[in-house]
């Protein structure tokens, strides 16, 4: 670690004389010590940690790819657009699950993005501090509620409520009935989307709030000084200024919705056909993995389920990498 030695030695001049040890010859001794690298143990610790972490990340990808290789050899990429999942006849297709994942995530985002951004705007820009602070803390805390608890509530409370009240009501709304037809059973794509929305809302709010708070005071004052009302300042200066950050928040929330498995598995109804209505039961990649992995025998069947994991992983990694890049470009903008 030659750079360590150089860096510490260069600080010699910065030490005020009063703080230097007043013993003769100590300067040389200090320099000897400074020129020594940080110590083998410490360097080993750092490199060991980073190495282990990297190894785990690599192992994650490699092991899942190896375990699913049999499946990709059997089905090839047609796994992606085959709509049937029938292990008995050795037909494996992920299309139903991919479509289900995308639909439930879309429902969740349609609900959570506007509500989340509006909530963040209220907490960060419009509410008085005495109200904003406790509400923000409350939402941050609620973000910690485990998904299994949300799932349990969705299963035992929301499912009957949706079957008896919400879904019959939605079917009566003129234009929306196109999305909501078929029997009102309770477990459905819609319910899964709602449960996901509840789960990603705190993320949406927290990240959007950070993005809004990051907009420079000078931008707000510019809009204010031009004669904008309080809301105009928020709408025309603050929200546009936070746009990249909000997009990052949406992407990360989307990643979470795509990857959530347990709560969805509890409320989606687990039907393996492409749904024709939001009231129909369906399946997502996550719920299909949960429902299939436990029962399958080692070999092709299991490999096919792990192939679903790989698809899910690729999907979320893509979305999350995009989100991280967005958040980073925002950080860079703010620096420049």
């Amino acid at each position: 670690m030659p750079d360590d030695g150089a860096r510490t030695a260069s600080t010699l001049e910065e030490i005020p004389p009063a703080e230097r040890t007043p013993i003769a010859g100590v300067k040389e001794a200090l320099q000897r010590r400074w020129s020594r690298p940080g110590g083998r143990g410490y360097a080993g610790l750092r490199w060991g940690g980073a190495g282990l972490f990297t190894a785990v990340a690599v192992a994650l990808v490699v092991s899942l790819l190896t375990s699913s290789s049999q499946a990709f050899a059997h089905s090839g990429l047609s796994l992606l657009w085959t709509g049937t999942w029938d292990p008995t006849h050795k037909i494996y297709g992920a299309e139903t699950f991919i479509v289900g994942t995308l639909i439930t995530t879309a429902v969740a985002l349609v609900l959570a993005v506007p509500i989340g951004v509006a909530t963040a705007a209220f907490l960060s820009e419009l509410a008085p501090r005495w109200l904003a602070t406790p509400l923000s803390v409350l939402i941050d805390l609620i973000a910690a509620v485990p998904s299994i608890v949300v799932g349990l509530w969705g299963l035992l409370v929301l499912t009957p409520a949706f079957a008896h009240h919400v879904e019959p009501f939605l079917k009566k709304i003129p234009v929306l009935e196109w999305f909501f037809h078929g029997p009102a059973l309770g477990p459905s794509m819609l319910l899964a989307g709602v449960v996901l929305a509840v789960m990603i809302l705190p993320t949406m709010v927290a990240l959007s709030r950070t993005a809004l708070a990051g907009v420079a005071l000078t931008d707000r004052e510019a809009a204010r000084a031009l004669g904008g009302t309080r809301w105009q300042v928020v709408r025309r200066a603050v929200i546009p200024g936070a746009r990249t950050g909000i997009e990052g928040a949406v992407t990360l929330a989307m990643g979470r919705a795509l990857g959530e498995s347990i709560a969805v598995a509890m409320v989606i109804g687990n039907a393996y056909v492409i749904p024709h209505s939001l009231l129909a039961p369906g399946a997502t990649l996550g719920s299909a993995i949960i429902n299939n992995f436990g029962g399958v025998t080692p070999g092709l069947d299991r490999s096919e389920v792990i192939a679903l994991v790989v698809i899910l992983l690729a999907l979320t990694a893509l979305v999350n990498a995009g989100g991280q890049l967005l958040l980073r470009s925002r950080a860079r903008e703010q620096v420049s």
Partner: protein
Amino acid sequence: MSPVATTTGLGTGSPGDGGAGLGEGAARRRELILAQSKRSLGRRHLAGRVAVALCMVAVAISLAPLVALVAYTTSRGVHALSVDFFTKIPTPAGIAGGGISNAIVGSLIIVGLAAVMAVPVGIATALFLLERRGRIAGTIRFTADVLTGVPSIALGIFAYTVLVEPFAHFSAIAGSFALAVLMLPVIIRSSEAAMRNVPRSEWEAGLALGVRRGRVVRSIVLRGALPGLVTGNLLAVARAVGETAPLLFTTGSQLFNLNPAQPTAAVPLTIFSLGTSPFPADQQTAWGAAFVLLVFVLVLSIVARLVAGRLNRQAR
């Protein structure tokens, strides 16, 4: 040269010279704009009030389901609680009574082991990021950020392939490993941030005294960043303790077990299996377990925030 000497005749000069003159157009525009401003102000204020009202509705919608969920879980869950609930193991399906002692002990073992695995590696990696710039550090940081978003079910399947399949049985350790991978990126990034808050001058003061780098890190950086480290790690634990998907195919058992190499029960798994059971008695136990889990997670989060709050106060 004093400014007095450089004072130009500007103050005495005729105000008009050199000016382009805004002219007629300007006066007309001024009138138009001011009139439009006055005319639209009422509408602009109204739009603002409507927007604020809509935002407040959004706040209510954000909070309502989550508050309802917590309240409902509490009201159902407290009824399930008893001494037996914490000391007994579950009764056979559908039969009332019993407890979740196996799951509580199992969860503590699994999450404790996960923390033992993840915290040292995470802090060491954070130190690596702290001391090194450049491509390697950038790649590790990006990997950590992307890994934060990896679906937890994928981590469970990963742990299954490396720690369950080779040994042909479930174990607490396999579950711990999955949770450790889940916690790692959170720990790395929060620890890095916490240690970055320790002023560079404190590092240098220590180094200037001739203390070795490793000891400076131990006695100044880690100590200075302690509240931040505690907060980050507690939040990681709070997240891990409620995770179900990583344990689903790694730890599974209903037995009371203290050996980490053996199948072990966990609270989230108990909630899943009892919650999806058709028997009301089982569902009741599931609410009790959910309540216990919720309280544990919320207390951890609150403690973590209080520690962070203390940190902020000290910084001021």
